[in-house]
C-alpha cells in the first residue's frame, strides 16, 4: 500500500466520520441544506487555492465564513426561504469561479481531489476533524434540545446564541475540510447522506450520532478504495458509496 493512498484514506475516514457525526445534528430543521450553498460558495476560494498552490481548505474557509454571515443576514433581515438562498448563493459561487479558474482545474474545484493530499495538510485535517468531533460531542445534547424546541432549551437556561455560534463554526470547518475531499458541489451530501442512513437504522440518539460517524468514515474509505481500483475521481465515488449504503439502509429499515 503506497503512502499517498494511506494518507488519503486516513484523511477521508477522519473528515468523513466527523462530517457524518455533525450531519446527524444538521438533519433536523433542514440544516443539512445549509451545507449545500456553503459548499458552493467556497468555489471561488478553492479556485484561488488551486491557482496559487495553497491548501484548498484554507482557500475555502474565509468564503464559508462569508457564507455564514450571508445566511445569518438572510435569516435576520428577510423572510426568503432557504431555497432562494441556495439559488442565489449557488449561482454566484459557480459564476465567480468560472470567471477566472482555468477550465483544466475546474474538476478539482467541483468534485474535490483527495488523492494528492500532502502530509502537512493531512495532519492538519485529521487534527481538525478530531477537535471538531470533541466539540460536537460536547454541544450535542444542547443542540438536539435547541433543534427540538428553542423555548424548551431557553427554559433550561441554555444560551441559544452561544451554542448556535459554536454550531455554525463547526459547520464552517467541516465544509472547509469537506471541499478538499468531495469539492464544492458535493459537500452537502457528505453531511446529509450518512446521517439519513443512520436515521433509518437507529432507535436512539447514541446509535444515530455514532452510526452517522461510522457510516461517514466507511463511505469515504469505500470511495477512496474504489478510486484506487478504478481511477475514477474519489469525490464522486465517496458520495456514491454513501448513497449505496443509504439504499441498503432502506431495505434494512426497522
Amino acid at each position, binding site marked *: 500500500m503506497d503512502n499517498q493512498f494511506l494518507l488519503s484514506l486516513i484523511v477521508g475516514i477522519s473528515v468523513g466520520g466527523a462530517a457524518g457525526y455533525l450531519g446527524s445534528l444538521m438533519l433536523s430543521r433542514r440544516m443539512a441544506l445549509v451545507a449545500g450553498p456553503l459548499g458552493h460558495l467556497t468555489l471561488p476560494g478553492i479556485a484561488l487555492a488551486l491557482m496559487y498552490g495553497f491548501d484548498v481548505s484554507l482557500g475555502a474557509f474565509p468564503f464559508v465564513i462569508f457564507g455564514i454571515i450571508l445566511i445569518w443576514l438572510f435569516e435576520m433581515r428577510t423572510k426568503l426561504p432557504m431555497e432562494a438562498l441556495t439559488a442565489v448563493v449557488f449561482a454566484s459561487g459557480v459564476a465567480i469561479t468560472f470567471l477566472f479558474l482555468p477550465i483544466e482545474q475546474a474538476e478539482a474545484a467541483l468534485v474535490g481531489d483527495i488523492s494528492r493530499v500532502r502530509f502537512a495538510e493531512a495532519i492538519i485535517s485529521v487534527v481538525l476533524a478530531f477537535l471538531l468531533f470533541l466539540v460536537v460531542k460536547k454541544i450535542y*445534547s444542547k443542540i438536539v*434540545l435547541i*433543534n427540538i424546541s428553542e423555548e424548551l432549551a431557553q*427554559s433550561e437556561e441554555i444560551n441559544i446564541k452561544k451554542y448556535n455560534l459554536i454550531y455554525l463554526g463547526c459547520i464552517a470547518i467541516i465544509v472547509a475540510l469537506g471541499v478538499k475531499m468531495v469539492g464544492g458541489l458535493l459537500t452537502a451530501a457528505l453531511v446529509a447522506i450518512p446521517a439519513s442512513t443512520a436515521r433509518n437504522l437507529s*432507535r436512539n*440518539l447514541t446509535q*444515530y450520532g455514532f452510526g452517522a460517524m461510522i457510516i461517514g468514515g466507511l463511505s469515504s474509505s469505500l470511495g477512496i478504495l474504489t478510486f484506487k481500483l478504478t481511477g475514477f475521481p474519489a469525490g464522486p465515488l465517496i458520495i456514491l458509496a454513501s448513497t449505496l449504503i443509504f439504499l441498503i439502509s432502506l431495505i434494512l429499515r426497522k
Partner: protein
Amino acid sequence: MKNGLILKVKDLNVLLNDQSIIESLSFEVKRGDALTILGPNGAGKSVLLKTLLGLIPHRGEIEWAKGVKIGFVPQRLPFIKDIPLSIKDFFNLKGSPEKETEAILNSVGFKEDFSRKKIGDLSSGQFQRVLIAWGLVGNPQVLLFDEPMTGVDISAEETIYNLLAKLKGEMDLTILLVTHDLSVVYKFSTDVICLNRQPICYGPPQEVLTPESLQRLYGGEVKYYQHKH
C-alpha cells in the same frame, strides 16, 4: 413575599413587534394552587407563560418565591420526531440520571423498560404523559403547562387531567395551566384568569366565570353551564 405566595405579578405588560399582547395584568398564586389561564386563540396565554419563565421581555413586576424550581411543558414539539430519540435520551437532554428517569416515568404510570421506546413510536396520549414526566425532572415546585391537551384524543384527555390532579396532590405541586377548554377550568383549578390581551376576570371559577365574563372573553354567544361539586 407574603406568606404562602409562590408568584406575584403586578401590572404586567408585554409588547411584541410593537403590538400589545398583554396589558395591565396582576395576579397572585399561592403554594399548592392550580391556576388556569383561559382565553381564545391569540389571547396572549402562551406569551404569558413564556413571560413568567423569563423568555420574553416585559414591563411590570414578576416575582417568584426565592429558590423556586419551575418545570415547563410546552404546547407542541413539532421537530422531535425528526430525530431518533428514545425516551431515555430525551430525559438525558435534561441531565436526568437513569434512576430518576425510571422513577418519574413510573409516577406517570409507565412500567419499567418503557424508557427504551422511541419517541416517534408513542401515541399522542403517551407522548403527553412523557412530556409531563419530563417537566417533573429536578423536582420542581411549580409546573407550567401550555395547552396540555393539544392533539390528544378525548379518551386520553381524561387520563391526563386525572394524572395532573394526582401528581399535584402527591408532590405538593403548584400548577399554572394554559387552556381554551372551559371544562378543564371547573375540573381542575382553584383560580382562573380570563385573558384576552387584557384581563377579563380573575378568581375562583365558580365565582368569576359568569355568562357575562365569558361573553366578554370569547365574544358572541357562549354555551354556559356551571359545574357543582
